[in-house]
């Protein structure tokens, strides 16, 4: 159980039988009055965000959630399949569960899969991924300072903005939190 001091951004809690991640928390108390903890929580299964208020003397259950590294195998269009490289157990997630990570999924690469009571419910890409550009306009040699960009399609299908000097076929590092180009990969 978590006490009000442990209800912090990033903590994962079980409320109404469902797993949530805390996206905002504050302790509020009128002078001499009852203290409350207000939390904004995001459902780990469907992504909806709600607020919950507790008397700060109450405790909240910790969600039975673990993150584990898994290898992305393939998608059959309906499900996205991942494998635990240790046990070779496979799990399947829907597009909703895969969420934003869908832009960065490359076969054989490792991703963080969230298991709730042993069932896969979400996927997170590493903060930085290295992907090959499959399509973009030819590079402009020497232009490393103008700051101008052009769209580039990556092997995963995602489109990112890259500097003009970058070429098709090159591997680049992308920040998955922002979707921004970082640098050319060696």
């Amino acid at each position: 159980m978590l006490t009000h001091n442990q209800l912090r951004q990033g903590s994962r809690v079980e409320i109404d039988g469902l797993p949530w991640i805390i996206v905002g928390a504050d302790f509020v108390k009128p002078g001499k009055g009852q203290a409350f903890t207000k939390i904004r929580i995001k459902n780990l299964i469907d992504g909806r965000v709600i607020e919950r208020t507790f008397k700060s003397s109450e405790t909240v259950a910790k969600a039975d959630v673990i993150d584990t590294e898994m290898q992305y195998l393939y998608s059959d269009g309906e499900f996205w399949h991942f494998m635990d490289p240790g046990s070779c157990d496979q799990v399947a997630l829907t597009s909703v569960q895969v969420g934003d990570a869908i832009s960065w999924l490359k076969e054989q690469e490792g991703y963080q899969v969230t298991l709730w009571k042993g069932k896969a419910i979400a996927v997170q890409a590493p903060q930085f991924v290295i992907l090959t550009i499959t399509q973009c306009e030819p590079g402009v040699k020497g232009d490393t300072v103008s700051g101008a960009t052009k769209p580039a399609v990556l092997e995963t299908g995602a489109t990112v903005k890259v500097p003009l000097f970058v070429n098709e076929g090159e591997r680049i590092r992308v920040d998955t939190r922002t979707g921004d180009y970082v640098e050319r990969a060696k």
Partner: protein
Amino acid sequence: MESATSWQPVATWWRLQRRAELLARIRAFFQQRGVVEVETPLLLPAMAPELHQDPMVCAEGYLQGSPETAMKRLLAAGAGAIYQMGRAFRAGEVGRLHNPEFTILEWYRPGWRVAELQREVEALLLSIVALPSKGLCCSTAGEAKLLTYGEAMQRFAGVDPWDDSLTQLQQKCRESAAEGELLPLAGLERQELLDWLLLQHVEPALRAEGGMVFLTDFPPTAAAMAEIDPGPPPVAKRFELYVNGVELANGYQELRDAQELRHRFQEVNRQRQRLGKKTLPIDELFLQAMEAGLPVCAGVALGVDRLLMLAVQTESIQEVMAFPERSMAMGDTRSID
């Protein structure tokens, strides 16, 4: 994750210099008015128990939640006008406006009524920080607005704190919850529902209006150590000062009846027990002093860190402290698994 820069102070050096300046200005204000600075122990064997305040426990006793009982012993001994500025501790209070260890300014004015003290609080603030002043449609005393607790709850939360039934209050809480917000209403008692409505409606309204507002005349259930005017309706002669929606000070027409004080402390301990909280040792020397006689007086406690927040315009109390409680730095995303 702890990073290599975790040892750094949270407040900027500029803000810490403003803190020093603020403390100096407060001391100058009281010196000019002949109010004497006193020091009393931080470490206490007993206290004036409160229902919603848990003391910090240490091996030798308790760290003070406020210097109230010791300062009143000085007043009973004939001290005259006194103030104290120092550290106070409240276990578990961590948030945007709370740090478990903070700087408290508390002062007492023998012979004064609470309205006079409100004017002095206002004068102190005006001498220290420039404040925006907007009209809150109430009677005014100088720059600050006066608003009774009852008026505020009626106007902003749509409830009558004295006459509405528990069911009516619960209904209002349910209606006014944010979309998707769920409240464990069943477990909440009358005063707790009122506390929630105050946080949900009154504080945001005061924030929107801006400026100084004295909330006065609280329900007897929220009297703490204030005198009660029998009415009708009966009201506690207590005030809370809000500045730009931030609660800054709490003052009383001090209750002087030793028997009534003992009764209130015992009642607090009974309620604490019922809620599964530890009962707290009552300060008997304080009660002896009250029996010997506390002069008619008004007293107030003010949060100095929050005053500094207003003066330098920060959003959180942590930003004006060199070293706030580490675990609660704003934006902290450390996992506690």
